[in-house]
């Protein structure tokens, strides 16, 4: 499976009367893009903003983010969201670097918000903690149509507080479609131009004797080719597929700090790192994706057994595993660590520390085999953020009092992608 990523650097992005690309500047036809997004009756309106690194801007209510990418025929861009259900991770992908598409919206009827707030600062210390502080971002602030705000509808009832009403789930998916259509639209425009850089991803046979490494990837609020993983057994996926748009975040009620956005999958830190060292330091055998399980201990055991069995079938003797966060997911995650170590597969865990005060050990559940952990930071710590001139995405935080543009003592938990267990960021935590 060979993927060729053709990157074109975008120096600046502007809203204008026509979509075109010249001299590194991407102009976007505001009317055409609005029309494209508002094809979906889920939205009453959309506001488009371009924000740049250093702008005195805070974006709130962020739901997801994606990098503009487009796959020419016979490929499929973001299969089942934009393009047809075709395997990605091979062929050609056009990619725009230096820019991202962000989506933000108020919550709809029956949408839980206790973990939903996600903040991106374009200036100050917050900007340094997120990938989107360094990119020029096109922000789509989506306004749901009246039917999505009608709490009296039967499908606005919350049956499961974690995922919210079926109406809210539909809305979340529509938001991703709008985001990914925009991402593909932008990249298609630029894709006709010559790329600045071409990078090839291919797992060529590695020399014998190198450690054979697999990656156990725990998914939460994400889909694989548009399919939710809930209730499924672990399955294999090629690392190219993850990098090429197969995994899309569809649930916003996940801690922002460790929410693995669609963008974080396109730039998945662990996968990029394992790829970079494939054939030299290690033999990257593949990725095992599995869902954060429900509350059934037998299901958790089975998931762990099955995931480790797949690793053994791949001949693994070493593994990285990432934790999606949350209480229940900690159990199957740790069971995988135990079973993997017991199968002779040396395992390193990558985990955000999402619980507790500084004096709290912070574990929901652990096994004594969890001796090698990389921390992606304690997200219950406070970051001091400056006042900003402008707020995009909403008028008030979901669960933080006061005006969102004021100086804030915000928990790291609210900063989008600062501690994702995909390993993209540099945060850690230390014991004092």
């Amino acid at each position, binding site marked *: 499976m060979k993927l060729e990523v053709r990157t074109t650097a975008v120096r600046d992005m502007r809203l204008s009367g026509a979509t075109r690309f010249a001299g590194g500047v991407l102009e976007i036809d505001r009317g055409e893009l609005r029309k494209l997004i508002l094809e979906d009756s889920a939205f009453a309106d959309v506001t488009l903003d371009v924000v740049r690194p250093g702008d005195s801007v805070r974006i709130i209510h962020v739901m997801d983010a994606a990098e503009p990418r487009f796959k020419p025929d016979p490929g499929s861009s973001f299969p089942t969201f934009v393009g047809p259900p075709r395997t990605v991770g091979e062929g050609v992908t056009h990619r725009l670097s230096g820019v991202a598409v962000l989506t933000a919206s108020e919550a709809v009827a029956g949408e839980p918000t*206790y*973990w939903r707030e996600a903040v991106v600062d374009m200036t100050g210390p917050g900007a340094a903690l997120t990938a989107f502080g360094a990119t020029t971002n096109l922000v789509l602030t989506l306004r749901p149509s009246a039917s999505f705000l009608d709490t009296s509808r039967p499908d606005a009832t919350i*049956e*499961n*507080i*974690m*995922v919210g009403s079926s109406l809210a789930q539909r809305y979340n998916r529509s938001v991703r479609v709008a985001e990914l259509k925009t991402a593909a639209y932008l990249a298609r425009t630029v894709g006709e131009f010559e790329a600045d850089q071409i990078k090839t991803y291919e797992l060529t046979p590695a020399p014998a004797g190198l*450690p054979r*490494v697999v990656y156990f990837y725990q998914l939460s609020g994400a889909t694989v080719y548009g399919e939710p993983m809930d209730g499924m057994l672990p399955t294999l996926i090629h690392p190219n597929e993850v990098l090429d748009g197969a995994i899309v975040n569809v649930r916003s009620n996940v801690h922002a700090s460790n929410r693995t956005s669609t963008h974080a999958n396109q730039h998945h*830190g*662990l996968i990029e*790192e*394992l790829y970079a*060292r494939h054939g030299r*330091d*290690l033999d990257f055998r593949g990725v095992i994706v599995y869902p954060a399980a429900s*509350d059934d201990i037998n299901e958790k055991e089975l998931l762990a057994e099955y995931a480790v069995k797949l690793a053994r079938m791949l001949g693994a003797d*070493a*593994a*990285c595993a990432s934790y999606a966060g*949350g*209480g*229940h997911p900690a159990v199957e995650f740790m069971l995988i660590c135990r079973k993997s170590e017991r199968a002779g597969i*040396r395992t*390193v865990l*990558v*985990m955000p*520390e*999402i*619980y*507790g*005060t*500084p*004096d*709290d*050990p912070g*574990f929901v559940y*652990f096994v*004594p085999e969890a*001796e*090698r*952990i*990389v*921390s*992606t*930071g*304690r997200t219950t*710590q406070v970051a001091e953020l400056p006042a900003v001139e402008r707020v995009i995405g909403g008028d008030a935080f979901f669960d933080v009092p006061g005006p969102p543009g004021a100086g804030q003592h915000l928990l*790291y938990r609210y900063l989008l992608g600062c501690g994702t*267990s995909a*390993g*993209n*960021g*540099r*945060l*850690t*935590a*230390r*014991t*004092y």
Partner: protein
Amino acid sequence: MTKLRVVHYVNQFFAGIGGEDRASEAPDVRAGAVGPGQLLERALGASAEVVATVHCGDDFFAEHEDEAAATVLDLIARHQPDLIVAGPAFNAGRYGFACGRVCRAVEETLKIPAVTGMYPDNPAVELYRPSLYIVASGPNAMSMPATLERMAALGLKRARGERLGEPREEGYLARGMRFTEVASDSAARRAVDMLLASVRGEAVLTEWPLPDYDRVPPPTPIKDIRRATIALVTSGGIVPKGNPDRIESTYATKWKKYSLAGIKALTSDGWQSIHGGYDTTRANEDPNRVLPVDVLRDLEAEGAIGRLLDQYWVFVGSGASTTNARRFAEQMADELRDLSVEGVIFTAT
């Protein structure tokens, strides 16, 4: 530049008064450095001086702890120090407890930084390490010079308000406080480095040490369950419909109790789960699945239990810190005991 003023606290032995036979000596003070204080002064260098040595017999301190601590604190305060250094106490239990108590009193009451030194197995370490900077010493006075060097270096940093490094760099026993920092490499790079080093058989240092939780021994069995009052407590988030007290769905800071008087079973019209960490569909269909009032009322009617207490306690476990959870448990246990509850069924999710 004025020198930093340091007061040294030692026991009767290191003050040169005598051994076990003089362990009942009451607190007193001497001007300047005494005994190991001279080594301390050398380690502190030119920028600080030991202005006084306060001492107390180990038995006296152990037997009159409040009085001794108050007197020692007063003797220390008179010298207006910038830093207190206590010990090192090595593996001596009574001396260790005295050093810990003195340091904590100094920090809490006088708001002056304090540093002590102990052998990691000293019984006082467990009590004081979360709140104090304790430099790790050897088991006995053989390690005096090296320990005082580290205590002096750490003490100077604290007195000057400088940022402290990690415990293993500075030589103090980790207090167990976790703080977020920015590492030089991405988490992905660090993970793969750690994995490869581990596969090569090298010793690797985890970034997040596993905790050592306390274990609660089970109480003695209930003598006669047919007469016992049984209470329900849950972390599963079952509340009256509409969540009138706005119990948090995650990161709990509070608990509530609600009446079960006259309630034979919970209904989906009257009750719901607001827990933010599990699929609540089934719990909302039938809240007895999480808070089994129906079954307990049956058992009560059959005489299998004495009675079900007419109220229950609830909070949400999802994301609750162990600090808060411990506080909840203590508050609830007090109430349960006052109500002569003999057994609790705690349902978690």
